[in-house]
């Protein structure tokens, strides 16, 4: 996602919507808390990745992963 600002806005909007609607449909409070603790680092990672990708860093980890998996894993 090369558009840094727009991708940050998208992430922030979705995260806000997620937190604002948490526990509104009568779920278990303890479970909701656990889910919130799970989602906080995920959102942090997504924002970090948004910034890295938005600054034009090209990670292209797919081919590296394929190399790691080895040619014996190549099917098809």
């Amino acid at each position, binding site marked *: 996602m090369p558009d840094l600002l727009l991708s940050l806005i998208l992430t922030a909007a*979705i995260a806000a919507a997620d937190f604002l609607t948490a526990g509104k449909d009568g779920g278990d409070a303890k479970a909701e808390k656990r889910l919130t603790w799970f*989602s906080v680092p995920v959102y942090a990672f997504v924002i970090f990745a948004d910034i890295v990708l938005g600054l034009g860093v090209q990670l292209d980890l797919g081919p590296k992963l394929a190399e790691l*998996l080895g040619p014996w894993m190549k099917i098809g």
Partner: protein
Amino acid sequence: MEKRKTTGRKISSVIALQTIGSSLVISSIGPAMQDSWIVVIIAVGLSILLAWMYGALLKLYPDRGFLQIFQEVFGNTAGKAICGIYAAYAVFAGAQTFYIYNEFIKIVGLNETPQVAILMVSLPLIIWQVRSGPDNIGSCSKFLLPIALIFVGLTFLLGIPFMDADNLKPVLGSGPTALVHGTFSTLVAPFGETVLAVPFFGVADRNIKPLRVMVKGILIGGAVLLTATLRNLMILGAPTCRLFLFVSYDAVGIISIGDFVSRISVLIGINLALSGIVRIDVSLYAASLSVSEALGTRGSTRPAACCGLLMVVLGYILYNNMLSAVDFIPYIPAIGIPFQFIFPLIALITGRIKSTRRKKQAGNGAGERQQCRENTEN
């Protein structure tokens, strides 16, 4: 947590559209070249065996969802760990589809539009659809499936004047190795990816038969893939098909009858976009359900928001451009094998052993009670 029960017809539609949507990600023309249509037929047959395995597992624990069965069979900790790994697999599968879906829209239609603008429309809708529950995804699929079937049928009929049956010759000329290779990769992806739709049975009607529902979905999806493969092969020929990124789109693009019937590749674009969304929905639902099972918050679809964002970002972390995503496609089946074959098979065998042992113990217990009763009477 789900209030409404999903019907078998809806789940069949989900599985069928998920299979159809695979043609967005994976080219139907594999190593078997002109014999790719034979490969599809064999793979459909073999995938029914896979469906039998998933069905048997669900039958073994009728009151449990697919992911809960792992916790039942392997114990709480190992079961939750497997759910976590399943979540990673579902996120990966979704990331692959999401990335290619966005690239498809960009390459085919909206060259100048920033991809994040497309995401701003599609991602919140997909998350909302998943958070609304599997019944909602099922209802959407039930409505969209006939549209997909009509479009594929129509493009096949309109493509007849442009087809050359000689493109399918020599039949079985690709050799047994290519045939086995092609069958295996087609079996694992798309048909094996049915495993991501199996959690839908956790909220399904108790009366439905999972095997019948899965087979119905696989047969419909398989029939569409077969039709599309035959159409593409006969219009373009196998060597030309392998040159294109989106074979169906380019094959149908050739069809033009006078001024009236032209540019009908739009139909394929719509098909791929609609079935692509269902495919992403299925991956996202499986991912959020796996996360919530791993965290011990049964049935919650709340992780859909963060998992959806993770899918999008992962796609861009993995791939620089469409070509690097395409280059990775041969590795997808290899990643799917443990989740489609190994874990369910081990769970089925362990579950069967456990249930036999339980029955024996129950039998012994009943015998001992009977003996005690007889002793007291004497």
